């Protein structure tokens, strides 16, 4: 046996010493994975519990704890999918979120370009003022919003929520895009103008591809903050544009809590976010640093 190993490995002693040393070097760090793992478990368990409840009948939920559904049922989901007043709220949410994302990016792109490339009268104050809107407590705005959109007869429309969410998303979009644009050397602009590009062509053909990931990150954040916001969305809608998150309060109606349906509706609101994260997973870390690391 001994002889065998020695003929097979040209440097048996080295190989063993190496294995040993790598082992001892790793040993010191081998428990590091425990911390993120424990944290992820802490994040996942409450979500799992929601999923667990969503597959149980209300009776089973109330009859005692079980770590998984004993009699799995799709009833809760069927309730939502067969009732237009439920599933339409889902599309309502999607509609205003997408509208908001598009509006934010379209108006933020030129502004971010201006802030990243030019100095102009009052630029710094303007930038800080924009950011202050991100700091405005939504609770401050709900009453005036209601009156303002009532005056324009926009209550209970998707566009009303989309525009209202611009309050905090546009400043954020300008801020993130400005960070990414400042990372693009100015020489690129100048070269393009020397080559005879007009501004719109330069912006579309050359500049946009360079900041594509920044636009993606911005869209992600606009989507995220518009999707998770409820206070304003609920205030500005009654039925036609009501978000799914607001519809969930229905479950506490006449017959008391319908936990199963509540859980199922909750699970459904997690799915779009999870999908979006999956698509941007390779840019998440950089994205959350807003292009400013």
């Amino acid at each position, binding site marked *: 046996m001994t002889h065998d190993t020695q003929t097979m490995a040209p*440097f048996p002693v*080295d190989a063993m*010493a*190496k294995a*040993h*040393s*790598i082992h001892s*070097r790793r040993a010191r760090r081998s428990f590091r994975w425990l911390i993120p793992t424990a944290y992820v478990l802490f994040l996942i368990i409450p979500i799992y519990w929601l999923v667990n409840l969503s597959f149980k009948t209300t009776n089973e939920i109330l009859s005692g704890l079980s770590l998984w559904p004993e009699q799995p049922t799709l009833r809760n989901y069927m309730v939502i999918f067969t009732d237009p007043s439920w599933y339409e709220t889902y599309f309502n949410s999607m509609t205003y979120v997408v509208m908001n994302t598009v509006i934010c990016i379209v108006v933020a792109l030129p502004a971010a370009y201006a802030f990243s490339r030019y100095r102009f009268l009052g630029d710094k104050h303007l930038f800080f003022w924009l950011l202050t809107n991100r700091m405005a407590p939504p609770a401050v705005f709900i009453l005036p919003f209601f009156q303002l959109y009532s005056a324009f007869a926009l209550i209970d429309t998707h566009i009303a929520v989309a525009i209202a969410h611009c309050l905090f998303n546009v400043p954020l979009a300008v801020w993130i895009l400005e960070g990414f644009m400042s990372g693009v050397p100015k020489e690129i602009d100048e070269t393009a103008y020397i080559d005879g590009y007009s501004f719109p062509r330069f912006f579309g053909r050359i500049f946009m591809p360079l900041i594509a990931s920044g636009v993606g990150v911005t869209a992600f954040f606009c989507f995220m903050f518009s999707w998770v916001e409820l206070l304003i969305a609920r205030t500005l809608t009654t039925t036609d544009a009501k978000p799914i998150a607001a519809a969930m309060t229905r479950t506490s109606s006449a017959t008391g809590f319908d936990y199963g349906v509540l859980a199922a509706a909750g699970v459904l609101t997690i799915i779009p976010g999870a999908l979006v994260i999956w698509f941007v997973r390779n840019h998440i870390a950089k994205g959350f640093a807003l292009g400013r690391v």
Partner: protein
Amino acid sequence: MAEISFDRLRHAYRPNPQKPEDFALREINHAFRDGGAYALLGPSGCGKTTLLNIISGLLEPSHGRLMFGGRDVTHLSTQDRNIAQVFQFPVVYDTMSVYENLAFPLRNRGVDPAEIDVKVRETLDMIGLSERAHRKARRLTADQKQKISLGRGLVRADVNAILFDEPLTVIDPHMKWELRSQLKKLHRRFGYTMIYVTHDQTEALTFADEVVVMYEGQVVQIGTPAELFERPMHTFVGYFIGSPGMNLMPVEVSGEIAHIGPHAVTLPGAARSLPAGRTDLGVRPEYTRISETGIPVQIRKVEDVGRHRIVRALLEGREIAALADESEPLPATPHVQFLPGGINLYANSWRVELGA
């Protein structure tokens, strides 16, 4: 300080290397003299950084041993090897002052505060940053930051070697020369063992006592700058070192005569043994003369580079370079001659000894 020696050292990044091509670093057996200045020279991807990382302990070689003064350090961690390193990009501790940066390695090793102060002041003097001792390190220029990096090595009296990983990459051109000569001065005065990785031949040749030329994971020659110039052991050395590089012409050899097509060149001696395969004649432009007689060539262009001119000519359809004095008129029917002292013969890229 200690001699650094490589004992059958090889490295492969992938497991179970079989062919020589599987190794990022092929076998090397050599010793770096204590107090010597060495350069690892070669194009990117030649394995010089792999070798440096093995010396610094960042990488463990897959085969062979690394010794510091007779002690096997192959499996020691970076800390235990007692080396210093200057990186390609300045690495300084931003939040510390220059003084604190230099004191840092000593404090970590629990050196007595009074002694730290003495050593740090000394080192500040050596690298010429005494006046900026209490500035924040991040407010300095790139070359000053590189000096701090160097200083953190110099401040420790017992370093086995100071490693430099292309340290002048981010330095302004006019500062490069100054920094390099300062390094040279420090080396002469204090006698540290220095190992300098670069792809710039000027840096390597002016800095090092001995240059290790690497090519495709292999050490092709270790020698003084003069040796590399006069007797390149490999066609790559001839091509890579010198500007312009060595002229290489495929030849057929019979006895003391090398045939380039219909033309014959007399070698300084017969090859002792000539392996089968590709044979090349190698002559540096410095040993190539344009003259009235010899092998006919067509001149393509003449570059004036100051003290002399570089003549680019075609010999049997192959471009060669020759040096000519500035004043020397070029003949109307140009020929080329090779000076006997500069003639080298290569079989399969490796130099063949000529003569008795």
